[in-house]
């Protein structure tokens, strides 16, 4: 029989998974709203289909590669959870079943890949995206997931703090998006603005709710940490919004609504590695700093000439780094871990800095590099970019439909 805490835990994790699922249409609308009217549908299709493609490989060998028995710290045993065979009996008498675990982790894998669609906006063949999503998950996410979430060499040997996937989810997808964008080259016509800010707001709002499930669910149950991280996640999203808007106000004189929405996500990304490692003040400050910092990153990134227009790099990549580094310097949480967390400025050990830098460096370099290689190799073999003609009318040419007909 399961313990009573575990019974309540199951109730909360079922919920967490349910709201995380809504992050997919949330992300699709967030990205689609930022796209021009001619490539809304393609963005939707890239974000949503990971729930098919990545799910299949995750069930077949992905879960094994991430959390299976470690093969020398490099990768989990792909056969360990092949279709859950042999794991189905767990939980029959109450408490956690492994099926729930599998489903929850499947969503983590899928959303990471979906975020990368930012780097492919408006110019990637849809079939190439389908293939890419499967290869990327296998070569980038599964190894990184194993190193961070499983028994990989990183978590075994390096002392770093990452609560809910600042590295394997956000930095990996942010730098992955950058790598893909670099490999694809810029769109021919960069003069499209976000076509619907209401969709962007809706997407951001849904993502925020989903993040409660993402961070709260990472606590593994209806426990102290879940309640704690729900609070920090709420606070950092709120001040992330203000941080981004403040930066815009300062730079342009006007705080925008796209900025507001971007700031929410920036704050949420930043709190992801740090949700159990900052106190309420820390969450408020971290959110604000992350919002402002990401706003600034969007600006200078635009100058790099890389067409990664939905800014997964700035929001998820840079935002994730800000959150991780904040813990190193300003972490403060007393009861969320076995030992109190203290950032360097609050008496913590400086060794955390080196560990964190290694984890960040490994993640970002690995993600960027391998993504770029995947994209380049695919391009040589199957030509992943659409023709110039298709690019002008992407939704219709790739998907045979257009997003709106108001007549």
């Amino acid at each position, binding site marked *: 029989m399961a313990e009573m805490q575990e019974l309540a835990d199951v109730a909360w994790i079922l919920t967490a998974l349910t709201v995380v699922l809504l992050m997919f249409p949330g992300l699709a609308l967030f990205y689609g709203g*930022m796209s021009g009217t001619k490539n809304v549908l393609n963005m939707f299709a890239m974000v949503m289909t990971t729930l098919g493609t990545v799910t299949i490989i995750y069930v077949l060998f992905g879960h094994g590669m991430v959390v299976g028995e470690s093969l020398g710290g490099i990768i989990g045993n792909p056969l360990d959870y092949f279709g859950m065979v042999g794991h189905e009996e767990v939980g029959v008498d109450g408490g956690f079943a492994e099926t729930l675990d599998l489903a929850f982790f499947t969503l983590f894998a899928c959303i990471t890949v979906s975020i990368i669609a930012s780097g492919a906006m408006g110019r990637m063949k849809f079939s190439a995206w389908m293939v890419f999503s499967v290869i990327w998950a296998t070569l980038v996410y599964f190894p990184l997931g194993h190193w961070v979430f499983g028994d990989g060499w990183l978590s075994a040997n390096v002392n770093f703090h990452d609560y809910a996937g600042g590295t394997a989810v956000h930095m990996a997808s942010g730098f992955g998006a950058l790598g893909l964008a670099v490999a694809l080259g810029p769109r021919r016509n960069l003069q499209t603005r*976000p076509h619907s800010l209401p969709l962007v707001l809706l997407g951001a709002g849904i993502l925020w709710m989903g993040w409660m499930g993402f961070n709260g669910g990472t606590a593994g149950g209806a426990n102290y940490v879940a309640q704690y991280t729900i609070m920090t996640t709420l606070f950092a999203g709120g001040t992330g919004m203000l941080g981004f808007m403040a930066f815009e106000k300062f730079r*342009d004189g006007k705080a*925008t609504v796209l*900025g507001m929405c*971007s700031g929410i996500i920036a704050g949420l990304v930043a709190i992801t590695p740090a949700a159990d490692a900052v106190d309420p003040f820390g969450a408020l400050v971290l959110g604000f700093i992350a919002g402002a910092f990401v706003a600034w990153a*969007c*600006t200078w990134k*635009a100058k790099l000439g890389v067409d990664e*227009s939905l800014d997964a790099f700035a929001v998820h990549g840079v935002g994730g780094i800000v959150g991780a580094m904040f813990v190193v310097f300003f972490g403060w949480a007393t009861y969320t871990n076995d030992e109190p967390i203290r950032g360097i400025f609050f008496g913590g050990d400086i060794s955390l800095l080196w560990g964190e830098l290694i984890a960040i460096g490994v993640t970002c370099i690995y993600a960027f590099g391998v993504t770029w290689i995947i994209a380049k190799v695919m391009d040589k073999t199957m030509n992943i970019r659409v023709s110039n003609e298709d690019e002008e009318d992407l939704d219709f040419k790739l998907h045979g439909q257009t997003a709106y007909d108001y007549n």
Partner: protein
Amino acid sequence: MKLITAVIQRNKLEPVTKALAERGVGGLTVMDVQGYGSQKGRKEVFRGKTYETTFLPKTRIDVIVPAEEAEAVIDTIVAAAKTGSIGDGKVWASPLTGLVRVRTGEHGPDAI
């Protein structure tokens, strides 16, 4: 008959319509257009990237009037649409060689 066409500021549609109605002009046709001229387009900034619109929203009005009223109608429009700022628009007149009212089949000035 003359066709008077006016390209004006969007928010001047109401006063122009009203002024024309007061003059006894009983019908007109309106469409949304984008204009460009001495007045510059505007910039919106999205996450640090600037999008400039070359064109500005304007409203176009087409009114058919008996030839003799053309001058007066143009004056009415100009008076009602004027703000004095750049971008106020233009009004022009062109000749028509025929007009029919669909409902009744009436021809010429009777159809106005």
